[in-house]
């Protein structure tokens, strides 16, 4: 990155990660398959009672999304850490939080956004009504970036550790709880035919908060992990 311009650095970083992901297209399927598998396990474990599945469906799908996100988080900084690129980010003259934002955006496009493609299918599998499926998509659209943003903080704290993956869940899942509560309940409420503007406003607020604060925390955590 010989150029000094920040937008250009952002775009380059984003493009690089996306190109790398497209080259390993098969790996993009992993969180997707996990998402579908986890959701499918519940009817097998609980019993195919349509009313029951429709009632707990939103919760199941959102928990599965959380777990899929958790599974894919390690990849945000892993390869960069291993080949030393991560240190280059810290040494560059650009604010690390903006570079982090580029990495997180790439991660979301690769692992979060695809979940939306599969979500309607899962909604149908669990017997959710059409209104609920639309809201499910909307909550996933607003919520999956939050999963990537908050997850990045956890990854940054554990990237230098040998067994970082194990405590990553412990660090990140409590932070996911508010999103889970409001997103799952939004879909539930939509299934009952009631308005969900309040839920969506709250989730949007979480997104804005995460967008503004978590890159700073991630940058600080990266500095500490690599010191």
């Amino acid at each position, binding site marked *: 990155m010989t150029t000094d311009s920040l937008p250009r650095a952002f775009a380059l970083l984003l493009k690089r990660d996306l190109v790398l992901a497209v080259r390993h297209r098969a790996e993009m399927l992993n969180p997707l398959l996990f998402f579908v598998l986890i959701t499918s396990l519940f009817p097998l474990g609980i019993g195919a009672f349509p009313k029951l599945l429709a009632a707990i469906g939103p919760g199941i799908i959102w928990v599965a999304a959380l777990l899929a996100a958790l599974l894919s988080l390690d990849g945000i900084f892993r390869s960069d850490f291993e080949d030393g690129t991560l240190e280059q980010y810290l040494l560059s003259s650009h604010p690390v939080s903006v570079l982090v934002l580029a990495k997180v955006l790439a991660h979301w496009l690769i692992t979060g956004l695809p979940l939306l493609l599969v979500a309607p299918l899962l909604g149908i599998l669990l017997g959710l009504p059409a209104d609920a499926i639309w809201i499910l998509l909307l909550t996933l659209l607003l919520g999956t970036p939050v999963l990537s943003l908050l997850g990045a903080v956890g990854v940054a*704290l*554990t990237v230098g550790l040998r067994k970082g993956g194990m405590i990553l869940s*412990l660090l990140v899942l409590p*932070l996911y*709880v*508010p999103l889970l509560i409001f997103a799952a*309940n939004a879909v539930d409420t939509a299934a009952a035919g009631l308005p969900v503007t309040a839920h969506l406003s709250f989730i949007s607020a*979480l997104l804005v908060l995460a967008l503004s604060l978590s890159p700073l925390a991630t940058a*600080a955590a990266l500095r500490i*992990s690599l010191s």
Partner: protein
Amino acid sequence: MFNNFFHKLASPVHFYRISGRLIPWLGAGFVLLTMAGLYYGLVKAPPDYQQGDSYRIMFVHVPAAWMSLFIYIVMAGAGAIGLVWHIKLAEVISISSATVGAAFTFLALVTGSIWGKPMWGTWWVWDARLTSELILLFLYLGVIALHNAIDDKRTAARATAILAIVGVVNIPIIHYSVEWWNTLHQGPTVTKFDAPSIHVSMLIPLLLMAVAFKVYYAMVVLMRARCEVLERERHTSWVKQLAEPQ
């Protein structure tokens, strides 16, 4: 003169000595306050007309819950101070608070569960407060796990400070979300954990126990901090002198 005091306090040697002298006094204060609190709570306060004598669990449950939150805030605040101003003592206080904070959280959960059994007939209810406490316990365990996973003390202190700060920002959000979640599933029985107005005969022991727990925390955090200081300064001459007085 005050400035001088704080400068001295921040030096590990002086901190070790001064805290060593404070701890017995804090211990005595804790014992006295607890005896007073237990007397007023278990003996003097009358039975509740609805819950009978079981409400007396409140005198340990509520102060424990208050402490769990208070200690987390201290842990995050001290961590922030250590991070911003590079004050080692702040780092030490922060990490020394984690275990005792987790212990109070666990205590709040257990006593809440035991209190709930005669009230609601089950050992666990997804009550808003208990659920929030459970998540708080996970937040504490995360801090402890992260600290144990990092070998270098300085890096560990700074990483856990970041985690604690992220956690403390999330606590009101989590609390609000869980409370909102709970109101959707409110059963016919309203939670008994906060009585609308508390009689003064019950308030006095509650406050006494709350102060007693605070004094206890001060004592324990200083005890742990001294260990942390010893560990960090083990290669200095003053520590070696301490271990083997020549």
